[in-house]
């Protein structure tokens, strides 16, 4: 049994179990130490996954577990977003008597998301999606005495239960068609499969993954979660599940035979998702909700790369570059919100530039990167997306995305304008040194990624799925 191929995941699992036991036996003022344990586990897991890079691409555990460039790069991104979330949390959660378990839940959720990105087997995919979902529901509703958090958790749970069930149905139908869950054999057997049943299976699996992506049919939880869940949790849930699900979806659609019209369907979902997210974000007067809707629209952009994943050799690189850019920018944005003690109404941000210049600068950099303004990494992500989409013949989709980017400029700039040009009102309370450091770390990584984008893209040039 090649246990070494699973070391990062095993470390997350063991770390989570140790944290659960630690949290059960330690007093309230020591609960925050669990954050340190979680950071150690995340650092070890990152270290071991860096060591896996040289061995990629390969399949492990009889083809069930993929160790390839996309999976490992996605793993790094998810582990980094987990680390930012963990370091944002201790001061946010300080008054919670039992917040040690919270870090275990974060590690379990990350484990599920990593499984999604690495799954080369439909049952593995189901386990990953279910693990990340069940660990995320309690995270969203962690402020159990606060009604909006419970409401967000309930919405998240109900949509999740429905779409996860659909995903399982899709996988079962696929298994009935193929007689196997392994992706390699699925691809062979699907060539002469019944097209009607295959359509049902594909539709159910795409729906199930759209929940994790917060893409069109199952996007409704994202704004509520962004508003109601603890702000550090939103930093994780708006980023990491998307990365896992996007890689999983790209891996899955490549199995489908060419006569299946999946690119058209994914393109439609992408167009609807980005347009809907942007139109809904336009009128928001709540910054967290606005970022939630913007996260929906960003999923739409990410899906553009999935549309052309089989048609253009650089589509996978574009997908990961875009996801990395989005993840860094969104983490920085939510780190700012956490650092400002989760202030959420747009009016609370009046004149922030004068009261908290550095925090405002981080927020502005993050928002501009989300739009895709040239020197920042968000620009390169979007540029690559447009390049592959147009080259593969989906010009109309690129036009829709370009219009959407223009529209999105309005609401991102509106937040920036409020911080810059309005008179400050009242005192600005901030969280503390940890959230400050996490915020700086995320923005420094964002800037470094912007400067080192050539090197990063060179590293990702040879990305491909293990077959």
């Amino acid at each position: 049994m090649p246990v070494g191929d699973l070391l990062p995941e095993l470390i997350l699992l063991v770390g989570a179990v140790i944290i659960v036991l630690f949290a059960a036996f330690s007093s309230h003022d020591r609960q925050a130490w669990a954050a340190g344990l979680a950071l150690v586990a995340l650092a070890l897991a990152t270290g071991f996954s860096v060591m896996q890079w040289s061995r990629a691409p390969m399949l492990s555990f009889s083809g069930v577990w993929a160790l390839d460039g996309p999976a490992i790069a996605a793993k790094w991104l998810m582990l980094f977003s987990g680390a930012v979330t963990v370091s944002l949390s201790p001061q946010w959660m300080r008054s919670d008597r039992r917040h040690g378990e919270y870090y275990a839940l974060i590690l379990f959720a990350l484990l599920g998301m990593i499984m999604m990105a690495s799954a080369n087997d439909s049952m593995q995919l189901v386990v990953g999606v279910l693990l990340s979902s069940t660990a995320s529901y309690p995270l969203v509703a962690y402020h159990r005495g606060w009604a909006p958090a419970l409401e967000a958790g309930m919405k998240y749970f109900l949509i999740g239960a429905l779409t996860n069930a659909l995903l399982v149905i899709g996988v079962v139908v696929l298994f009935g068609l193929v007689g196997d869950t392994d992706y390699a054999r699925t691809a062979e057997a699907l060539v002469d499969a019944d097209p009607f049943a295959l359509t049902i299976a594909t539709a159910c699996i795409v729906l199930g993954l759209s929940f994790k992506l917060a893409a069109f049919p199952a996007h409704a939880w994202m704004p509520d979660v962004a508003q109601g869940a603890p702000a550090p949790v939103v930093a994780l849930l708006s980023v990491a599940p998307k990365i896992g699900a996007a890689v999983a979806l790209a891996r899955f659609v490549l199995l489908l035979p060419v006569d299946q019209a999946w690119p058209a369907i994914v393109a439609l979902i992408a167009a609807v998702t980005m347009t809907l997210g942007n139109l809904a974000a336009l009128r928001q007067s709540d910054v967290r909700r606005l970022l939630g809707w913007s996260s929906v629209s960003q999923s739409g952009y990410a899906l553009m790369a999935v549309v052309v994943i089989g048609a253009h050799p650089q589509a996978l690189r574009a997908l990961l570059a875009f996801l990395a850019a989005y993840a860094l920018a969104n983490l920085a944005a939510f780190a700012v919100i956490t650092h400002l003690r989760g202030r959420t109404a747009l009016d609370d941000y009046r004149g922030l530039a004068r009261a908290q210049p550095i925090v405002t600068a981080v927020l502005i950099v993050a928002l501009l990167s989300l739009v895709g303004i040239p020197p920042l990494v968000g620009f390169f992500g979007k540029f690559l997306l447009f390049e592959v989409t147009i080259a593969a013949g989906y010009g109309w989709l690129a036009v829709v995305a370009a219009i959407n980017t223009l529209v999105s400029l309005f609401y991102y700039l509106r937040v920036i304008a409020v911080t810059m040009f309005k008179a400050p009102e009242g005192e600005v309370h901030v969280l503390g040194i940890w959230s400050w450091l996490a915020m700086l770390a995320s923005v420094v990584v964002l800037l470094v990624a912007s400067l080192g984008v050539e090197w990063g893209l060179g590293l990702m040039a040879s990305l491909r799925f293990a077959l």
Partner: protein
Amino acid sequence: MNQNATALIAEYWAVGLFVAAVVTLCVFMIGAASLLGGRSRGRSKSLPFESGIIGAGSARQRFSVKFYLVAMLFVIFDIEAVFLFAWSVAVREVGWSGFWGAAIFIFILLAGLVYDSRVGALDWAPKRRVRVDDSI
């Protein structure tokens, strides 16, 4: 195809006969009792049968949330047993790697059990008898 069907019938006819016999016996017992037995009606006859005790109160009661908690815990450890049965049939074939896999699995669930007892999920006593402990 026909050959197959014949072979299947030859193999499983006894099961079919058993099912048919069960259904026939049930139909006979219920049917004969309703044909041969006497009938009487009355107010107390139409009350729900509670083993001879007259029912009292509403059926809509509030149950303690503990029941749901115990049901969930039951499912978790029940599924643990399901996985262990699967391991036990293949214990020789999977060897030591399977043993360590199962051991880790059991220890993770054991950690869950320890956690449950620490947070009081297994305490059935009423509130006032629960140990007041600020350390958790």
